[in-house]
């Protein structure tokens, strides 16, 4: 089982990386790019036999406390 966490900058926060990538895509001729947001991906391998619900709760807490900064970032957690 793995926990997969995608962390992205909040919409209100400046995202110069996203803007630069967007501009590069446009220069390369990729049309229709309305916005790019560059974030992070964290993958956590869970030990065999881990309780899914307990892991969901614990990792959700870790996402809020540590893996993301709620002042500037949003996150999406999936366990699969």
């Amino acid at each position, binding site marked *: 089982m793995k926990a997969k966490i995608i962390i992205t900058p909040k919409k*209100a926060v400046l995202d*110069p990386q996203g803007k630069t990538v967007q501009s590069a895509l446009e220069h390369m001729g990729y049309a229709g790019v309305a916005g790019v947001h560059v974030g992070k991906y964290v993958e956590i391998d869970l030990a065999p036999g881990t309780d899914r619900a307990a892991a969901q709760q614990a990792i959700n807490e870790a996402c809020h406390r540590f893996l993301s900064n709620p*002042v500037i970032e949003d996150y999406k957690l999936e366990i699969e």
Partner: protein
Amino acid sequence: MNFAVLQFPASNCDQDAVHAMRVLGHSARLVWHKDSSLGDADAVIVPGGFSYGDYLRCGAIARFSPVMQAVKQFADNGGLVIGICNGFQVLCEAHLLPGALIRNRSLQFRCEHVFLKTVAHDSPFTSQIPAGKLLRVPIAHGEGCYFADADTLAQMKANRQILWQYCNAQGDVTDDANPNGALEGIAGVCNERRNVAGLMPHPERACEPLLGSTDGRLIFESMIHALGQKPAALAA
């Protein structure tokens, strides 16, 4: 006065901070991040650098160091804490200061001298800065763009928590004078209680004429004044 200067793995302005305090005629010692006590410190400096390699986010890992528990306790008891550059990032991550610091708008690491305008003189970090005096101090950072949401910013303004803004040589806060895209040109802030402050520029690198500016002294002299002792004369 005794200054405790924290030392995390990959702190790199810790020795500069110790040196600057000694130049000011005070004592300073390094406190390792695994220590859980600050000893008899009168004030704490969280120095610049790249604690824990800036992994995950700047300051995110340092925040959970044992020494930061002691710093939180020290701040809760009203002790003076100043975070410089990476130290500012650590204090924001630790929720001792509002807001966060993100990647510079230019995506470039900026290393240059800037001017700072002091916005609020009524703090232990700014009280000895003469009205109208601009501070010329160096910056050296890649992630110094200050951000806080609209509600937090409004609250900070109401409490006069914005201490310094980047400005030009005339003292005007302009977009051109903003080296990193910080919200409203914010270079440094304090907490609501006014005993914890952070700033991206490096006042410890501007304490001796040899280094091109002594304006940084005014910030430490303000702290020393607040701690009830006049700064000693510049050594040598």
